[in-house]
């Protein structure tokens, strides 16, 4: 990925603002702007939802929304790190499906639940390891690899369970789909999401590993030269994704009280959409976990609000797509307003001339 030269401000043009904001780098500045935008969006959605339906702000509704979106939210956490590091993982929903099928498969063969958890965790780690090794050691593009493993792992789920469903799980597990944490209205999977979100946020924003993830997303070569073990960290990210997705698979299975091969089918697009909506750049190197958390809230709140009004459910796809487009156009519109037009429009720019904007070097076409 090319280094981001858009941060060079022209001489004499807008210097950094005074005060604490001046101490922020431009990247952090942009992220803060994005998150503020998301907060505004959430507020708008909440107002819309509350005005159009008296049940929107009830705790029962909050429970329902959390229960149905918990697993997608959980999968978005490792996906955030992977995208920031410059890669992508489209196999997340298939790992979920595979682990759900494994739970059913092993339960039908009377394995004890603890052994099942271990086996499924191992399967998730293995799946992530395969992804990671193919990307880092063989050097394959992650988009192609994870399209392949998307099919492969879903295929494994199909082979494991075939057309059968397993649904005789004990109610102390399946109650997570119906009962909240005792004493609250928070569903179990939302609580797990919250805990994981804190862990991932700490790792991403407060540790050296997290900083190295940003670095390798911005420029893999520079990161390698500064001593970061790019391959090792990326492999680790894929392994963690596999593990977290297999956890999501277990949660999904218990929530529906059913293990069936099509659990989670198609959800990878929703996970990617949420991450992108959260301000994470598909080019890598930019984004924050807080933004993704906000995006999860916005996304699920919007879907829920639409469901509670009599909005035609057939059109929700349009809303999601439009939201996604807005999420990628907004930064570009801001750039346009700043006077930087794409080179295609303004012709070949003078390079580095005084008073002229620096030539943006970010490629027009994506390298995902």
């Amino acid at each position, binding site marked *: 990925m090319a280094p981001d030269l858009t941060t060079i401000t022209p001489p004499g043009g807008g210097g950094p603002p005074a005060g604490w904001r001046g101490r*922020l780098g431009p990247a*952090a500045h942009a992220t803060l702007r994005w998150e503020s935008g998301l907060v505004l969006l959430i507020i708008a959605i909440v107002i819309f939802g509350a005005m159009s339906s008296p049940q929107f702000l009830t*705790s029962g*509704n909050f429970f*329902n929304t959390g229960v149905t979106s918990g697993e997608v939210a959980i999968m978005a956490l490792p996906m955030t790190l992977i995208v920031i590091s410059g890669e992508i993982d489209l196999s997340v929903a298939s790992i979920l499906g595979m682990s759900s099928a494994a739970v059913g498969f092993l339960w039908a063969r009377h394995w004890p639940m603890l052994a099942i958890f271990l086996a499924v965790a191992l399967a998730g780690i293995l799946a992530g390891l395969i992804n990671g090794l193919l990307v880092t050691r063989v050097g394959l593009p992650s988009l192609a690899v994870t399209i392949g493993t998307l099919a492969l792992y879903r295929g494994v789920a199909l082979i494991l369970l075939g057309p059968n469903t397993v649904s005789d799980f004990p109610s102390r597990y399946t109650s997570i789909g*119906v009962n*909240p944490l005792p004493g609250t209205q928070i569903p179990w999977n939302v609580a797990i999401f919250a805990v994981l979100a804190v862990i991932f946020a700490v790792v991403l924003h407060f540790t050296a590993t997290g900083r190295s993830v940003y670095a390798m997303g911005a420029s893999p070569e520079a990161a390698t030269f500064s001593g970061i073990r790019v391959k090792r960290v990326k492999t680790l990210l894929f392994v963690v994704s596999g593990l977290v997705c297999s956890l999501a698979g277990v949660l999904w299975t218990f929530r529906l*009280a*059913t293990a069936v091969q099509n659990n989670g089918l198609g959800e990878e697009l929703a996970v990617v959409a949420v991450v992108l909506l959260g301000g994470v750049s598909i080019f890598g190197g930019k984004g924050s976990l807080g933004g993704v958390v906000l995006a999860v809230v916005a996304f699920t709140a919007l879907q829920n609000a639409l469901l509670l009004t009599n909005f035609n*459910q057939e059109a929700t796809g349009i809303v999601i797509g439009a939201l996604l487009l807005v999420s990628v156009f907004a930064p570009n519109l801001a750039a346009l307003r700043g006077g930087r037009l794409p080179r295609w429009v303004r012709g070949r720019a003078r390079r580095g001339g005084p008073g002229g904007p620096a030539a943006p070097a970010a490629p027009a076409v994506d390298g995902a």
Partner: protein
Amino acid sequence: MRHSKKRIFSVPAVFLAACVTLAACGSSGGGSASSGSSGSSGSGGSSSSGGLKTGLSAYVIPKLLGAQYFTVADTAKFGGAIAALQQLGETGTETSGTAATPASEIPAIQAAITKGANILIVSATDPTALCPTLKSAMSKGITVVTYDSDAPTCRNLFVNQADTTAIGVKQVDLIAKEIRGSGDIGIVSAAASATNQNAWIAAMKQELKKFPKVHLVATVYGNDDPTTATQVTQGLLQRYPNLKGIIAPTSVGIVSAAQVVSSSKYKGKVLVTGLGTPESMKKYVANGVAPAFFLWNPADLGYLAAYAAVNYASKKITSAQGQTFTAGKLGTYTVGADSTILLGPPFEFNASNIDQYHF
């Protein structure tokens, strides 16, 4: 930079904390999760002359929105469930997702519950995955009636389009007659895990024992997807060149199978039957590939489900076997074994009557 990162993190952290606090407070505030729909049972319950409650809020939740079969079964325009509900003085709304999966159907069910539904009329995308949600609905006093596709352990009543055995028996009898009592046949089914499909196929296999010279050589799965159904039919025909008949108990599969036979050298050699909607099959009745097939009137199915649900919600009937009720223009019905109500025998469509139907 540490300073900036903390600031970045603080905004969402505060927000998240606010949400959590709201949620936690919510529990002590309005009581349990049922507060949103505490008005469900008994709300708007004024009796009409027939003793049935009016003003109930009913939600019809098909497997997915956008499938013609369900549009006919559910909407007022075709005389389906919502038409019946409106006749009875209730409000009916059709809602669901657009992928025929539990993940897409459950939010619609939950929203219906949240909005104060008294009645849920559901075609289940999976026999067990909806149960946690449906059981929670029933525990709040909401009437849950399944139609078309059952979730056997978590509903008050199931309205079955036709007797499971009869559906299987009729298709086998028909194909056996068409191929003159001897030859190979294959089954093109839908999703391998669909409850109704497997029940019908089991009944078919049982009935086949009456026709010793008719051999069921294979069952293939088209997953209700035209591309897949086409490909599995092609494979079936290639693998068994002596195939004489195909049974496709799925409205997508029968169309695909008939289409494959019509456009290949097997036209005239292989006959197709199964379950299909008349409009989609007119061409194949006309060209002789599928001279006869079965279905029921989906509108009647929805209509009956609505009447059953309202009767149950008005406490006119229970889930027990032997209870009877009147379903408007359809007449009197009795609750059978396993809380199942049968619409009637499967209806045969053929050249003599198909032009009368427009769904």
